[in-house]
């Protein structure tokens, strides 16, 4: 081949390989980068809010900007960090590998999905810089606050907010169609439904829940956009509209959305815990059934966000009951995870530490959720920092602890190199301790009556006491520590991509199919299409020579 043709070839493959790639592994990594960068943006917003709250006299943020930061922090962390990392990255990267397929069912649709997401992200960032600033109606976009520009003084910021979420939903929709079609039609020979790794089950459940719940919210977004742009009054009482309608439509999606994020996080844990405990998963099928039950229940709990909204109080009781009911299947899954570790020979890797950290913190989130779920208690703590603490104890474990666990675990497969374990442990302890120091005191603030979304709490006498003030300052220092605690990770991550120890095929001695191919896997994933002989959690099997038994290795192969 002549010289010219050769360079052209290389250029071509650079664009195709790293940027406009249809390979699910590259797309997964692109989502990871996007999510991590947005996490930094979300974290910086949180820093400014904390600075304002600890030292209101510094006037770090005006109330308007504070509202915008609260809104964008929530939007970014839920939709542009949790979604791209937990679904975009882990879903795209792992589903085809774990089921033994060469790619997604629709690779080009997958690429389109990422770039749609990317444009949505750009629009969201752009909204900071339009006149009037970014959306300031809360991440829940409550109407009528969001329905007319005069209420928040934000015009194009909120329109862009709706638009960027619309693009993100379109992207996840394409992704969800892809996830489901892939998992249903492209499983390797022998990969029956009950031999699927639980990660795939969780991704699938998340996709189904998302697809079934997002429709009404898209309808609500259409109505909201018409209110803002055309002048209809669907959510404006003065025009005969109903602001509560927005809350119903939003939370019909909003609550299931929490599980869309949480389930892939559970999926990460359900892969790491057996491999890190060298034991089969406890109650494989029970975990699947519980997840499905929780998925169904998640559609009939939404009004627990609305106990004090002015909706018919007769609805409170049934929604309290379903909400408390939904903790049962989740408790089963958590117990199954703990039972998986019970008497295992635990290998306390960084991934395993983060997995256990997820369990411990999420447990706090789950238990405090019962307080919010029962209407009688919720009326007292609603819209206070108790709620802020509660949902950070559920979403932070999923979005960060579980995501970090997954990154430390699958980094070798993604980049072909290992992350440094020592710095990983440092990162874990800084994150774990930092997180608890930030959010544990918030329960107390909430019980003391500290409302959410308050730019200057010292306007209230009861929030100006020395004890409250010192707690605020303590939380802010802890938050700064938590943010700085991410530095070891950033350095470790960037350094290991180029200079980490080269990873072998199966560094954690795990069973699922992604560990039976090279690190990183070649284009097409497997040299020979794998045939599946076992369930994915065959650890410490007395029949095998080693304490693990890869899914694609038949026992005869080993014994002969």
């Amino acid at each position, binding site marked *: 081949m002549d010289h010219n043709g050769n360079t052209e*070839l290389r250029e*071509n*493959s650079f664009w*195709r*390989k790293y940027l406009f790639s*249809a*390979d699910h592994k590259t797309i997964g990594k692109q989502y990871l980068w996007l999510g991590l960068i947005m996490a930094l943006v979300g974290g910086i917003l949180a820093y400014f809010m904390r600075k304002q709250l600890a030292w209101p006299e510094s006037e770090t943020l005006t109330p308007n900007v504070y509202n915008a930061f609260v809104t964008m922090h929530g939007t970014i962390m839920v939709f542009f960090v949790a979604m791209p990392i937990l679904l975009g990255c882990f879903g795209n990267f792992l589903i085809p590998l774990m089921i033994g397929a*060469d*790619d997604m*069912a*629709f*690779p*080009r649709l997958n690429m389109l999905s990422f770039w749609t997401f990317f444009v949505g992200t750009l629009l969201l960032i752009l909204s900071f810089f339009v006149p009037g600033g970014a959306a300031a109606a809360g991440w829940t976009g409550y109407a009528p606050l969001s329905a007319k520009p005069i209420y928040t003084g934000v015009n194009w910021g909120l329109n862009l907010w709706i638009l960027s979420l619309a693009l993100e939903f379109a992207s996840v*929709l394409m992704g*969800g*169609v*892809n996830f*489901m*079609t892939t998992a*249903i*039609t*492209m499983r390797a020979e022998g990969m029956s439904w009950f031999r699927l790794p639980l990660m795939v089950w969780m991704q699938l459940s998340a996709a189904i829940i998302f*697809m*079934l*719940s*997002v*429709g*009404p*919210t*898209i*309808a*609500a977004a*259409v*109505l909201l956009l*018409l209110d803002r742009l*055309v*002048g*209809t*009054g*669907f959510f404006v009482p003065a*025009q*005969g*509209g*109903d602001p509560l*309608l927005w809350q*119903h*439509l939003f939370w*019909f999606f909003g609550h299931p959305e929490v599980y869309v994020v949480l389930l892939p996080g559970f999926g990460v844990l359900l892969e790491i815990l057996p491999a890190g405990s060298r034991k089969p998963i406890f109650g494989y099928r029970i975990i699947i059934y519980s997840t499905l039950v929780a998925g169904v229940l998640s559609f009939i709990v939404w009004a627990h966000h609305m106990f004090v909204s002015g909706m018919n109080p007769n609805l409170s009781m049934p929604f309290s009951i379903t909400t408390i009911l939904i903790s049962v299947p989740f408790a089963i899954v958590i117990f199954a995870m703990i039972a998986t570790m019970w008497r295992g020979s635990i290998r306390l890797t960084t991934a395993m530490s983060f997995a256990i950290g997820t369990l411990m913190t999420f447990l706090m989130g789950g238990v405090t959720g019962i307080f919010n779920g029962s209407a009688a208690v919720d009326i007292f703590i609603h819209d206070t920092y108790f709620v802020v603490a509660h949902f950070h104890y559920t979403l932070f474990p999923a979005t960060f602890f579980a995501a970090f666990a997954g990154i430390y675990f699958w980094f070798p497969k993604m980049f072909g190199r290992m992350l440094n374990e020592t710095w990983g442990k440092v990162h874990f302890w800084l994150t774990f301790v930092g997180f608890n120091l930030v959010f544990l005191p918030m329960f107390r603030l909430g019980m003391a009556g500290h409302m959410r979304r308050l730019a200057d709490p010292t306007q209230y006498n009861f929030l100006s006491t020395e004890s409250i003030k010192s707690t605020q300052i303590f939380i802010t220092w802890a938050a700064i520590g938590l943010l700085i605690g991410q530095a070891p990770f950033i350095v470790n991550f960037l350094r290991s991509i180029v200079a980490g120890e080269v990873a072998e095929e199966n560094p954690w001695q795990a069973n699922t199919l992604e560990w039976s191919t090279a690190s990183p896997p070649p*284009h097409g994933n497997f040299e020979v299409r794998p045939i599946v002989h076992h369930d994915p959690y065959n650890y410490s099997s007395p029949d095998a020579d080693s304490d693990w038994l890869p899914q694609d290795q038949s026992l005869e192969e080993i014994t002969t």
Partner: protein
Amino acid sequence: MVMYSPEISRSDPVDKATLATLIFLGTEIMFFAGLISSFLILRAGTPNWPPPGQPRYPILITGFNTLFLLVSGATMFRAVKAAQGHRRKRWLLATFGFGTLFLGIQGVEWVKLVEYGMTFTSSIYGGLFYTLIGCHALHLVIALVILIFVIFRSGFGTKTHPLLSLCSLYWYFVVGIWPLLYTLVYLL
């Protein structure tokens, strides 16, 4: 050269594209469910329906129009089932004709309603009508565009086209959701 084949030639138990379309339509159904519930909730909260000074929704003519749309569903079904090319061509063109007819009559009705003083912003009553019926019309327009694409790409239906079965699924959805909308929005 980097090669990737989007549709891998493996025999699958379920046709991937069909499955994906069905999953997508599930989301579409939930979208319309959201719109319809919004309609019912807002309607229940409005004391006078229709509000004073606003025209009634055109029940009768839309009822006839509904028949045209249903017929287009039937002709689409015949087109998919047609064994010979020239028959398929006839049924596809009939589908296109009835679909366009439905849309045209809807358009004429809209013009009349606007003349009677019912606009997007005249009342919740008007806004909901245009939003719900407009969303359906938009879906029909998209379905028509796909249909035109299929017709032109298949030599006016004389050859088979892989998109035809997907197009028909989408068409059935647009036709199937209409009687529900008609009943809840116009008749109820």
